[in-house]
């Protein structure tokens, strides 16, 4: 079903922007605190200690910034910003829309705003919040680099911040787009995580299968597949290290082409936003118009999550196809049972609500 109302302008409703900020600022603050643990909070703790106590703490602070240094110099992929940031941005994108499903969407739809205005305001607020979070982080890292002996440069920080911001906004818009047709937040998160990582997973699966003699593919072909998979996987744009499948190294891009990759991500952000607007405009917004809206939605989400966990567990034992599939099935069943158990526990702890 289509709505003939045509409105091609991209004017953002300031009232809706205010509403989104007012409604979600605490979520954004929480995301800032979690994402900035390794980049700001931990080093800041050492910095305060340095001011209050011994001078050696300053060097400890420089050490605290080493995960950041590693990331910036195309090394490791383990600080709170990059590890949790991707998931948090998907979570924010999903939450900002699904929280309206409890009824407030009806209020909003009866006001003089179009469905496009609603999605546009949500996307802009989330995007601006992510830009703000990344700007604060980048500024702190640059300032810290001027004061303490760290091994990175301001230009590199800015490039890194730009690319990472683009990745996070793309993931936010992916969550928003998926939430525009899924009614349940859990199914939206499961589906978004799956979509974000699917190309990379398929690439890894292909590489796994080539370890079996039946498929005798050339290393160049494998490398190309891997590169394509990485260019199609949004979170992979902030991964800089070499990944391993069992003992087999998977070469990833060690020296990112910052302008090109940022441009690709900007186009992806626009595409996801347009998709979200189009889908949300055409959603009849009652039960039969929302995919995964029924109570089965949570169940489907649990199965997706269990399969993802099973997949992850099986990667380390991918010596043979039988080993891979056997481990995946077993791990998925265990993960499924664990999640159902956890759900039941939460249900009873909340007094059966």
């Amino acid at each position, binding site marked *: *079903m289509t*709505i*003939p*109302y045509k*409105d091609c302008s991209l004017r953002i*409703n*300031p*009232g*809706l922007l*205010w*509403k989104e900020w*007012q*409604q979600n600022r605490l979520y954004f603050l929480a995301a800032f605190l979690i994402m900035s643990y390794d980049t700001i909070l931990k080093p800041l703790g050492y910095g305060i200690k340095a001011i209050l106590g011994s001078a050696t703490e300053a060097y400890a602070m420089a050490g605290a910034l080493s995960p950041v240094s590693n990331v910036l110099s195309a090394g490791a992929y383990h600080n709170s910003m990059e590890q949790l940031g991707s998931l948090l941005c998907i979570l924010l994108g999903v939450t900002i829309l699904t929280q309206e499903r*409890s*009824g*407030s*969407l*009806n*209020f909003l*739809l*009866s*006001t*003089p*705003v*179009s469905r496009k*205005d609603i999605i546009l305001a949500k996307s802009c607020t989330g995007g601006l919040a992510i830009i703000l979070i990344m700007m604060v982080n980048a500024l702190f890292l640059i300032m810290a680099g001027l004061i303490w002996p760290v091994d990175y440069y301001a230009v590199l920080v800015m490039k890194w911040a730009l690319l990472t911001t683009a990745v996070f906004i793309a993931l936010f818009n992916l969550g928003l787009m998926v939430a525009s047709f899924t009614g349940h937040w859990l199914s939206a998160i499961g589906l978004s995580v799956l979509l974000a990582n699917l190309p990379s997973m398929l690439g890894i699966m292909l590489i796994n299968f080539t370890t079996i003699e039946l498929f005798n593919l050339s290393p160049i072909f494998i490398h190309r597949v891997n590169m394509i998979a990485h260019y199609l996987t949004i979170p992979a744009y902030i991964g800089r290290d070499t990944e391993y499948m069992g003992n087999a190294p998977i070469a990833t891009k060690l020296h990112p082409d910052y302008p090109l990759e940022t441009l690709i991500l900007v186009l992806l952000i626009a595409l996801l936003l347009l998709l979200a607007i189009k889908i949300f405009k055409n959603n*009849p*917004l*009652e*039960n*039969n118009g929302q995919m995964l809206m029924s109570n089965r939605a949570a169940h489907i989400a649990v199965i997706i999550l269990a399969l993802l966990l099973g997949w992850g567990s099986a990667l380390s034992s991918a010596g043979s196809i039988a080993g891979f599939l056997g481990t995946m099935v077993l791990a998925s069943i265990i993960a499924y049972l664990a999640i159902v158990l956890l759900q039941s526990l939460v249900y009873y702890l909340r007094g059966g609500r």
Partner: protein
Amino acid sequence: MNSSVIDMYKLTKSYEGLMALKEISMSIPQGSIFGLIGPNGAGKSTLLQILAGILLPDSGYANILGKNIRDLGPQIRQELGYVPDVPHLYPSFTVNEMFTLGRKLYKNWDESKCRSLCDYFEIPAGKRVRNLSRGLKVRVALVLALSIRPRVLILDEPTAGLDPVARRAFLKTIIDEAAGQGTSILYSSHNLNDLEQTADHIGVIKQGELLFTSALDELKDSVHKTQVFFSPDHGSARALKALPGVIQVVQQGKAYIITASGDRQAFREALWALDPALLEPINLSLEDVFITYMKQEGYSYDYTI
């Protein structure tokens, strides 16, 4: 000039194969208070949600202020107020913040009207929405809807959660709004007493089908109730059911209460012809009329203890 503010033609909506609305066609006259009545699950809320732009119909069309609801841009929505049966406002917002949102979204926002209505309904402006009772939320929703100076106001069971004093204040406010501002009001309620006090037009809906629409006075004139007494062993009581237009005959002691439709005068003459000892008309409330019509349509609860 078009004399109706809302026109519907063959408006149809289904949920998972279940027909919620079946080809509803009606018009809401300009400046009227139009009461929509019907049993639970009749499709009243679905109809109002479609008109408010929340749901989309499967087929048919509806025009509000001359604009198709499928093409209802923000311009028309500026003049359309909606109060749902359970207002879902933003729980983390204070009442003041809800009004700020209204001020930012509506060009015609009337701040002084908002403040005076707030005082009138004794709304605690600093309180968070999540801490308000259902009745207070309804009042906040009404203040929001009236402060935009709407030309059309859609109310879905708004008095359901209100105490009698608040309900009376609510009804007075919407009558004043219709009379003073010329606002057209479409109003669904189970409380027929409320509708009788406020509405000038009535539409009856059952199982998604519109049974009829009528001006309230005409509707009440169309059905009449009469009480008759016969002398003992008269034997004419059985003939009552055969009279033209009789819907129901109920015996209460020595009296027979007859509900009938059609020409009132002709019916009286037919009754006098049966030679009753006493005949007196009884005032009929909207509730009596509604129940009578519903009975005709096969919707009633008849039970014996």
